[in-house]
């Protein structure tokens, strides 16, 4: 077991804070979160950092490591050159609370606005029948661990707070896609997506897909198909007339 000293810069304080440098031992096989924990246990007991599972399953320890949004628990120390200084900053898009902890309540507020799953009735035998191949694509979306790295990376809100009220963001588009493509769901969220959730503001630069620790093809498999569905709905003349006649409201 080798123990080397590494230099790590961690953001301390609120928005008026700054990076502080720590020299700390790192052992073979460790991840960035291990080293942050060692700083916390031995040098800065009050260092604020969120984490839970430490196995890439809960999505709590999101941060920007050397400028790249990632989970600290899944970032191995051997990714860095020996002697390289590692800089850890909180996610930039969300309001900073303290140190590495940000206020991610935006995501929870957006989640409340998602019209719920509304299943069709069961089969006569009391079951729901679905073929595996019909749910594979939705199961991909259900892999989302809500680390919010995609939200953090999306330039529609990263540098434009003013867009937040009208833009659900990639995580929520994955959620909408999961519902819209669910074989049992009967709810329709297309108008809401276009009019109030900002689906059209995404210009498919795929930054979200690049940072997804679950390798969900957010842009290709969720956002683009949603855009296509909205377009089909909008420009289908029958649907257009029906909408005018019924003055249908978006589901809530």
């Amino acid at each position, binding site marked *: *077991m080798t123990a080397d000293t590494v230099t790590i810069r961690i953001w301390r304080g609120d928005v008026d804070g700054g990076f502080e440098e720590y020299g700390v031992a790192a*052992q*073979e*096989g*460790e*991840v960035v979160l*291990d080293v942050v924990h060692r700083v*916390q*246990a*031995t040098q800065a*007991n*009050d*260092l*604020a*950092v*969120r*984490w*839970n*599972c*430490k*196995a*890439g*399953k*809960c*999505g*709590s320890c999101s941060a920007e490591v050397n400028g790249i949004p990632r989970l600290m628990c*899944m970032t*191995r120390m051997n990714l860095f050159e020996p002697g390289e200084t590692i800089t850890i900053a909180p996610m930039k898009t969300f309001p900073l*609370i*303290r*140190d590495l*902890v940000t206020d*991610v309540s935006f995501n*929870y507020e957006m*989640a*409340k606005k*998602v019209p*719920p*799953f509304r*299943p069709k009735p*069961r089969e006569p035998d*009391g*079951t*729901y*029948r*679905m*073929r*595996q191949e019909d*749910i594979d694509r*939705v*199961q991909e979306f*259900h*892999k*989302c*661990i*809500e680390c919010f790295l995609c939200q953090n990376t999306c330039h529609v809100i990263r540098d434009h707070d003013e867009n937040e009220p009208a833009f659900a963001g990639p995580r929520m588009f994955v959620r909408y896609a999961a*519902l819209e493509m*669910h074989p*049992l*769901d009967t709810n329709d969220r297309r108008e809401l997506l276009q009019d109030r959730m900002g689906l059209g503001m995404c210009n498919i630069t795929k930054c979200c897909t690049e940072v997804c620790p679950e390798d969900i093809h957010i842009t290709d498999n969720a956002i683009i198909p949603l855009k296509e569905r909205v377009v089909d709905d909008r420009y289908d003349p029958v649907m257009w007339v029906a909408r005018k006649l019924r003055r249908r409201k978006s589901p809530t």
Partner: protein
Amino acid sequence: MAEYETHEFDVIVVGAGGAGLRAAIEASAQGARTALVCKSLLGKAHTVMAEGGIAAALGNVYPEDDWQVHFRDTMRGGKFLNNWAMAQLHAQEAPDRVLELEEWGALFDRTADGRILQRDFGGHRYARLAHVGDRTGLEMIRTLQQHAVHKGIDVFMECTIIRLLKDGDRIAGAFGYWRESGRFVMFKAPAVVLGTGGIGKAYKITSNSWEYTGDGHALALWAGADLIDMEFVQFHPTGMVWPASVSGILVTEGVRGDGGVLKNSNGERFMFRYIPEMYRAETAETEEEADRWYTDKQGARRTPDLLPRDEVARAINAEVKAGRGSPHGGVFLDIASRGSPDYIKRRLPSMYHQFLQLADVDITKEPMEVGPTCHYMMGGVRVDAESQESTVPGLFAAGECAGGMHGANRLGGNSLSDLLVFGRRAGQYAAQYAAGLESRPTVDPAAIDELAAQAVAPFEVGGAENPYAVQQDLQECMHNLVGIIRTEDELDKALEELTVLNERAARVKVEGHRQYNPGWHLALDLPPLLAVSECITRAARERRESRGAQTRDDYPDTDPELGKVNVVVRQRDGDLSLSLEPLPVVPDDLRKLLEDQ
């Protein structure tokens, strides 16, 4: 006078994993004003890490499966120490709870005819676990979370409860603090449901997250409730052992359910040498028979790799002690030679990912190294089987922090189903209790002032103890002296060390201020951790036999007399007392099921 905000509800649910979420959903559906209070962000509770599946006798893969067989398997797995009525309700109601999740949007893996697929797991006679690859817990918590949000349940995230409040004998509310601001918060409520999970952070090597500090166990104990079976701590046989920093992280039993086998350094499938008498009649004797069993449940008996967890953990421990371990002190778990890379990646995607990213091991090409890790607490709050009410009026508990359901050892897959079945029941009966009260309890403000003063003491005391160092030393103590194999001498030594650790915890010094300060949060997690550690150690000392998860080197045999009692722990006037109290007697019609081989 302490400053705090006050909220009033009918039912407070503490903990937002599977049990807490399901309880809150049910209490709210019953019309109770319900609040869900949790230490982490919503959706991050430990349930999210559950991998293998939800045990429920749906009979989709084996039509001969039914609740009676599930009941039998559960009781045998628990070495008959289970509360039979809980085991019965659990087996009967689990299928409906799974189907309900599907109705709320969960997407389980499917059979060829489009129904919910079920997988083999240790101790279950038939393939019984509804699952989603190896990320079933994520599917479950997300489904419940989204359902709860749509139902408009009030959620208090990153809020830690440090004490339950009482009015005379009954529950009056709960007191805690916001992690973000450090400000205090008081919940007035006649009914509290504990769904706080387990105690794993009392141990050095554990699959559990930071939250698992025994809060519900300690809150109940301090409120005067009985705890039972605290000696039964489950060590999951397969945690990662290398690299050191990830040791303890869970490797799902699904690996063995899907064909993986355990081997020692000689390449021997050693589990065939560890088949206990109780399971001999239903376990394969040869590798050929064991391999045939995966596809032929009628003509062959199950592989010993899928014996219950207590048996497998002990066997691995013995192999390592005998010098037949893997390079990093575990044994080998091989699925690479047993299935195609495509099959492995499809069935076990997160295991593939976890080993590749954290250990540079490609599980489709080479074996994993695994060893026991502290995983689950069988013991907990003594509850009524139907209502989940504790011995304190108004206090309910469900899931891991409740005791009785799993007896001396829990079967894999029975936890997620436990959360759903008894979370629902706890929420239902808590709401009914609150609605049926003639007068609502009141809270004594002086008691709150005292709690608040205690909570900020670590900022003010003259001590110099580092809370992280105290926790690490506690974890060493429990790991070394109250681990998988126990002796009276070591348990006595642990009690001495716990006394010292309690003194040190009283001298913990916290730096900084109250806003999002993990050092302070940990300082406040130490009292529950120390309380449950003492309960575990004293209960383990009291049960002078080996049974299920309790292995006593000095009492290696099972004592039939001790098979009739629970060890009950309670606190009166600040002192713990222990007693042996009779188990509920299994009715004759159910007893017949247990005798069935």
